[in-house]
């Protein structure tokens, strides 16, 4: 970040395509976007706006599973979540463990961190020994 005439400039790398345009967002002291530069197409402008005001990420990780074919069950949030919540979600999920069998889409944590977003199983997890 740099300041120039009270404007704060933040840089972003556009992920819209392999050109990877270097984007710059100028923000005034009131926190409003004054100018966006560096994009070569609309997609880049939209990306910079979003990344500056409300960056979101898809969170995928694993939780423990007992009695399953594998020791870990892959899970994901049903929607992108605010980037700043990522570590809280990860830390919470680190403490979670489920028991096999599990079906793909089963809710592992409902409404995580009080949000509307669920964390669900990314696959079926059969029991280790189908006969058991």
């Amino acid at each position: 970040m740099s300041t120039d005439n009270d404007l704060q400039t933040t840089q972003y790398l556009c992920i819209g395509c392999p050109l990877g345009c270097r984007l710059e967002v100028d923000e005034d002291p009131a926190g409003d976007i004054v100018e966006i530069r560096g994009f070569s197409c609309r997609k880049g402008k939209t990306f910079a706006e979003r990344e500056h005001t409300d960056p979101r990420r898809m969170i995928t990780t694993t939780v423990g599973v007992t009695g399953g074919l594998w020791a870990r069950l892959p899970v994901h949030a049903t929607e992108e979540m605010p980037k700043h919540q990522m570590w809280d979600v990860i830390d919470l999920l680190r403490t979670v463990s489920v028991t096999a069998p599990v079906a793909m889409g089963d809710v592992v944590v409902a409404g995580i961190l009080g949000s509307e977003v669920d964390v669900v199983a990314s696959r079926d997890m059969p029991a280790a020994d189908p006969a058991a």
Partner: protein
Amino acid sequence: MMSITNLQDQYDVVVVGAGPGGMAAALAALRTGVDSVLMVDREVEPGGILNQCIHNGFGLHHFGEELTGPEYAQRFLTDLLDHHIDIATDCYVLDVTPDRLVTLMSPSVGVRQVLAGAVVLAMGARERTRGAIRIPGRRPSGVMTAGLAQKFVNQMGLLPGRRAVILGSGDIGLIMARRMTLEGVEVPGVFEIMPHANGLTRNIVQCLHDFDIPLHLSTTVVEIHGRDRVEKVTVAPVDERLQPDLSRARTIKCDTLLASIGLIPENELSQKLGLRIDPTTAGPVVSSTMETSRDGVFAAGNVVHIHDLVDFVSQEALLAGENAARYVTGRRPPADNIKLNAGTNVASVVPHTISSDREHTVYLRVRHPLEKSWLRLGEVYEKRLRYVVPAEMVSLKVRPRFLEHFHGDSLTIDIVPRDEPGREEM
């Protein structure tokens, strides 16, 4: 999991490998109307490499939505299980003969031979190891491929170490940098010998920038230190000829080195079979029906050429499976009549031949990044490309109308800067 033990002696189609390639090939063969299909995998369950790729980003082309790797695999498997199919997991394919006698081995069936009407090879790829790039130093534990670490962390619940340096900026290395960080492992940096990153910008941003993990371009690991366990690595910048400048070397403390230095098609079976191999892809030479140089032996997926998008693996494998079934039922399309050559800035072309009577999707890999270029198919077709990078495969639809007035037997594909008037002197 669902491995069968009562194998038949004969199948219309045998598919080797149950990754996305194998599953799509099996599905297409069944839909095209063969009666019996056997799909074999040495892992304990179908899905291939996707089972360990827990991140999202799969399926945007094929399913129109972004799925995680396991979800993508399970969708295909669910479709497959709607049909009658035999799946043998925990089962190695040891050999395939030119007469398509397939030798299998597993704890449950022992060593068995089955005769296949057609075979689809979908063995995927394996990772290049440290040996492939010869880093000097001892052989302490803690050095492994990024993909192996991925399997440890995501499926087996094992952490490879506490502080991991990553060599190579391909997508697997970037994804593992984030994954290790989220699991509480420190990642002091990613080191890339080339002057540009090999992975998608999205992964640079979301796997490195989000976690303040530095990416050092034009830098490589020149030595690994430690007796029993990695204790540190020496890194050094490289010049344009990729030679390290040891006067600027420095050491980094770590207990783990993850190598993400590329994939190589898994082609032991293909070699034994005597298939023609393309040295640029390291996979079998294939026709537009994905048939190899042996009659009735087809191939698809990473075993043919390394894909960055699983969606293209599925597409290619659907074609291979359909044509394997057509081979068995005697409904093969006309043979190819045009050979494709890789020209300027094109590292590889798949398939290697096409026919002028139908539409084909041709996949290219470029050698160098270029902004604003022409893609030229001989003299018959050209199109503008906004950018090309080696990390992203370029796909080209070749339509019969391009070839209406073409009577030659080979076409060269070039990707040249747009300000350049014509093809380079040959």
